[in-house]
């Protein structure tokens, strides 16, 4: 394709990408470098039903609004928000380092910092859920491919259910069932013969449930893609493998999997990004005591109830993007290599 026509070909999507992806990210980046103007405070008399009239500190809304109108972006803060205690906490880490005697002590202090605690869970979730979700999806695809035609429709419907249900609703339903008064929670207590067993009160169990939920909800996407891919596996190769005496497992291992690898790369890319942005199950399972994620911190910062910290939310968003890029690096490098090898 000549360069000119290629340019026109991609122009609409390029414009859309600049408008809806690049520009917003740019504005978030700018936002993350600024903090609000100093609030102008004054003492005024306040009368309320309890305690009568007292002198209280209030924001001088007029003066503060005037300041804001003059410079809407706020004060330039450089990387201050990135490095403060609620994010990378460089100062605190340096202090912990000099104060802690051992690595264990140091790590336990660092893991109490909100950003690192969230990062720990986010990475663990991504690394566990992505491969397991892909494997489960692949297994379902193989199974569905083998079952008789009459059963296919219903089985596909059931396997797609996790994708059809809104994630928040799905996690709420499971939360109620797994609650120590729910049907699954009670069943677990009965199986373990421990009436005090409860998922909400145990960190490892909460993580395990969130992981299982993640795998459940991630599997249908891999299943759909792999199932489509399975229809394109060359029957000749499969048959010749059968004639050579390959078992079913060997056919899957040496014929089907190599054929589906490019698809697996694509699925891994999408799933890594999705899983790194985990949010709904934490909200749905009421699990913020045991597990928080980077997206959860952003969500929390943007809640107006907490005074909407736009700079904080922007800084965490930028770091999330950075981590996603780092995570995707191996997959991207691989794709690039495949791409540059092909023409040769």
């Amino acid at each position, binding site marked *: 394709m000549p360069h000119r026509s290629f340019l026109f070909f991609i122009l609409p999507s390029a414009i859309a990408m600049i408008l809806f992806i690049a520009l917003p990210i740019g504005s978030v980046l700018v936002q993350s470098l600024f903090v609000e103007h100093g609030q102008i405070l004054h003492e005024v008399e306040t009368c309320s039903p309890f305690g009568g009239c007292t002198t209280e500190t209030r924001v001088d809304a007029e003066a503060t609004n005037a300041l804001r109108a003059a410079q809407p972006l706020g004060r330039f803060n450089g990387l201050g928000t990135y490095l403060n205690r609620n994010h990378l906490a460089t100062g605190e880490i340096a202090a912990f380092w000099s104060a802690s005697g051992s690595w264990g002590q140091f790590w*336990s202090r660092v893991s109490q910092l909100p950003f690192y605690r969230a990062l720990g869970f986010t990475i663990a979730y991504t690394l566990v859920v992505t491969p397991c979700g892909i494997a489960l999806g692949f297994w379902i695809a193989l199974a569905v491919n083998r079952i008789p035609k009459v059963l296919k429709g219903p089985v596909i419907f059931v396997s797609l259910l996790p994708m059809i249900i809104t994630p928040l609703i799905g996690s709420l339903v499971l939360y109620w069932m797994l609650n120590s008064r729910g049907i699954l929670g009670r069943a677990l207590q009965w199986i373990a013969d421990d009436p005090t067993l409860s998922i909400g009160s145990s960190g490892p169990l909460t993580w395990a449930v969130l992981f299982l939920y993640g795998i459940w909800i991630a599997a249908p996407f891999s299943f759909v893609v792999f199932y489509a891919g399975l229809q394109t596996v060359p029957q000749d190769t499969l048959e010749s493998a059968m004639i050579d005496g390959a078992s079913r497992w060997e056919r899957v291992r040496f014929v089907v999997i190599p054929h589906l690898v490019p698809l697996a790369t694509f699925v891994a890319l999408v799933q890594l990004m999705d899983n790194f942005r985990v949010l709904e199950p934490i909200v749905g399972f009421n699990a913020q005591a045991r597990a928080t994620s980077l997206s959860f911190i952003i969500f929390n910062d943007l809640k107006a109830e907490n005074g909407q910290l736009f700079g904080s939310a922007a800084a965490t968003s930028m770091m999330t993007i950075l981590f996603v890029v780092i995570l995707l690096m191996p997959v991207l490098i691989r794709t690039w290599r495949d791409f540059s090898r092909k023409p040769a």
Partner: protein
Amino acid sequence: MTRLSRISAAALLALAPAAALAECGIEGDGSVRVLANDFNALDLVMERVNSCAGDGVTVSVNQTEEHKNLQVPALSINPAEYTVAVIANNSLPPLLNAGLARPLDDLVAEYGDQLTDQQLIRIDGKIMAVAFMVNGQHLFIRQDIFDEAGIEEMPATWEEVLEDAQIIRDAGLIEYPLVSSYAPGWELAEEFINMYSAEGGQFFAPGSAEPAVNSPEGIAALEMMKAMTEFMDPDYLTIGSLEGSKMWGAGEAAIGQLWASQAGPLIDTEGDYPEVAAETVLIAAPSVADKGIPGAALFWDGFSIAQNISDEDAAASFQAMMYGIAPELAQEEPTGASWMIEGYEPTANAVGIVANLEGGVAYPTTPFMDLMHSALGTELVDYFQGNESAEQALEGVEAAYTAAAQERGFLN
């Protein structure tokens, strides 16, 4: 009345605007758009406000628990999305900080004859909000379980609550007799604020935005809360006030620290929980040791009118709200809430909160309190999980608050 029947009643009223109009008597035209929290007592007010819809006056009500997240963005635009924000003392400062509420002096003078001076919230000499009910947490006691355990005196301090809980457990009646709302976030922070108020602690250094919770009172408050968790369901870190009141209704607890606004259904012997309701007794929130301050911050619920709306809409909205909180409400629904409305006589459901008014401390309304509340909500969790000492947790709160306050421009 169940919510369903209330909604149907509201729907019916909406179908018959002409009949309702005369009753409401709004002068002039305008649009009334209300943003409110979602609990039973406010349903009663909103039902009346809804009935004001008629020719020239349109009414829409959005009742949601997310109201605190919506109000600032929704009132910042011009014209504002809502004309009335139903607020409490903790949700008024964000509106004041941004100058989104209008002074009500003229409207009160013209249409507010029914209001008592106690209902008017004056800031810098101007009326910025009108309060109509008192809220706060207090103790719920199961009389039958106390009788069975042989406890004769009602607990007046948290120390006594712990003793009573131990007696109930030892008697084999309930393994986890205590219920409270310790879900991380807003509710856990609220419980700390209650206990810290009872200890007589200060949240900020006087006259500044510098945090002061890392204090002996703070540590004592956390230690008392931790001692209480011994007697709570092991899932306590996932239980909020909604779940808590359901657990109470299901008879799973004998001592509960819950909201006054939740009391109505829980003591209604013809409601959802007749057996538990008959045995539920309401008393003041306990104090700590001999300090004598009830361990529950006091709240008022009221409303403000948006700044960014036409004067016409503001007048219609104010009149609709006046009809909503008219003295007839307190007479028709005396058990609906602890009204601050003229002519209201406290009933059985208000006993607990009225007892709190004696010596109780109001929830702090400094402009940076929301940042402190949110820092408490996220940073105290580690202490309850045993990952941090009380002092480390409070250091964490101060550090998290400081970082947020610097970003918002309250601290340098």
